């Protein structure tokens, strides 16, 4: 074996190790979060964590139900606000708008993804929260405010993935439909959208993941009361805000309970990721 060949083999092996960096990081994160969070869950019982309604860390009462409900409510709200907006924009940009307009609008919408989440939270706090307080009542810091801001924040995810999967539908489908006398909209509704369905769903699920994992924006506008909100005008605390609000001063079992919150969040996210991966893999096939 020449020196060059030996070097090449060495390089191949080191690159293989580097290639496992992402997988190893994922594994390390999983191990650390679970190691920190699960012991206390088993100590007090998984049931009392998942279904307990009272979060009083100082009295060793660690019920996460209000936060789980809160996360689900704002995520669902975000989907109601964001998905129609995102889907309509994606359909418009791929099927109806002028090419040149699409070339301008698409990067503009993608810019939404780059804006830091604290900026969204801040604007929500300055404009949306007072607006809700004055027009609909309640404190303004609410499920509604969080849902609307999260709905805007998931737009770029939903739009770009929907655009990609709509574009992946072969033109022959559209031509066949138009040849049968369908209008453009009928073609979109009956041919293009069903063909692009799994990609669009994957985008929506990824958007859900973003919404459920968002922290800073939600903290600023959701009000953060650890109770299950009775209406969408009442404050809400999500799993993420629960961690971020109390991490700075928590210690002992309180801190472990926050890691347990992280464990639950982590499991939800991994389930969503896996579903999204599987659905988008189906379209590729």
């Amino acid at each position, binding site marked *: 074996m020449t020196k*060059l*060949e030996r070097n*090449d083999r060495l*390089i*191949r092996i080191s*690159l*293989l190790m580097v*290639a*496992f*960096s*992402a997988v190893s*990081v*994922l594994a390390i*994160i999983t191990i*650390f*979060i679970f190691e920190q969070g699960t012991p206390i869950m088993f100590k007090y019982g998984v049931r009392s964590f998942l279904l307990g309604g009272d979060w009083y860390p100082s009295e060793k009462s660690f019920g996460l139900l209000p936060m789980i409900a809160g996360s689900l409510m704002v995520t669902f709200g975000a989907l109601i606000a964001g998905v*129609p*907006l*995102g889907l*309509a*924009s994606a359909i*418009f*940009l791929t099927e*109806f708008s002028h090419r040149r307009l699409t070339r301008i609008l698409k*990067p503009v919408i993608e*810019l*939404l993804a*780059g*804006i*830091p*989440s604290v*900026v969204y939270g*801040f*604007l929500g*706090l300055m*404009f949306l929260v007072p607006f809700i307080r004055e027009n609909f009542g309640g404190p303004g810091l609410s499920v509604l405010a969080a849902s609307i801001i999260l709905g805007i924040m998931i*737009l770029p995810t939903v739009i*770009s993935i929907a*655009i*990609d999967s709509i574009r992946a539908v072969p033109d022959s489908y559209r031509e066949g439909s138009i040849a049968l006398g369908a*209008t*453009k*909209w*009928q073609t979109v509704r009956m041919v293009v959208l069903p063909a692009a369905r799994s990609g669009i769903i994957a985008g929506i699920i*990824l958007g859900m*993941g973003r919404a*459920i*994992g*968002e*922290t*800073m924006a939600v903290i*600023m506008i959701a009000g953060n009361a650890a109770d299950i909100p009775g209406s969408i005008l009442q404050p809400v605390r999500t799993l993420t805000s629960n*961690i*971020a609000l109390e*991490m700075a001063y928590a210690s002992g079992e309180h801190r472990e309970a*926050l890691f347990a919150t992280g464990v639950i*969040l982590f499991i939800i*996210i991994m389930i*969503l990721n896996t579903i*999204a991966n599987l659905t988008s893999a189906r379209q590729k096939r």
Partner: protein
Amino acid sequence: MLLRPKTEEKIAQAFMYFFTSVAVLVLLFILAVILKNGVPQLSLEFLTRNPADMGREGGIFSTVVATIFLTFIALLVATPLGVGTAIYLTEYTIEGRLTRIIRFGADCLAGIPSIIFGLFGFILFVNKLKFGWSILSGGLTLAFMVLPTIIRTSEEAIKSVPPAYRLVSFSLGSTRWQTITRVVLPSALPGIVTGIILSIGRSIGETAAVIFTAGSALRMPSSLFSSSRTMSVHFYILAKEGVSMPKAYGTAAVLVIAILIINILTYYLMEKYIRRKL
């Protein structure tokens, strides 16, 4: 209710126009508000003086420095790992179970919320490795966070190098590694740089992962181990605690302008060098 197809088409179009304009207007509103309220606060002094009185007075110099340090460390760690992974995936192996596992890992990592990265960095770097709240802890946490972005973009960039380039290089007797370093990487460079710039954007805007790893001490970072406050954390604290709205708007304007420049730059590079959408 059955509508005439033509009417239905008109209604559908009207809805789509409306929704798309809402999405675009929201973005323009965000930019307009931040720039209108923030730009008047900006001055050379704002950028070059340290915050005083908890941020009520002075500028944001130390937070800018902290942001740059943190981002620099993150990329110093993430770039070799990400580009290396991409090289392995594209040049050294064929599609199979191994590549699926690696891609799955990267995809999952990309979906993990920043607060989880924050928790993780806090336990591993701050507590277990005893780096404390520091530039180093924050930078390493961010490195893990941006790793999937760098892998993805580098992979696309390397894939878009025509196979003929490699064949010519091999036919001249170069080894695989020589081909990669002298032929493939130079032509993929613009795409790789795009990924790095995107990651800079994410690092600058990140708050949740940074606040628990780099801390929020308002002072000039003096070493890798000093705790310090980045721009986005500073902005968060100014806005949330209501310390000073003018200073908050000023900081937000700096953040948003930086993000704008980064996005325009990446868009330009992408259009020019990688036509494919990631």
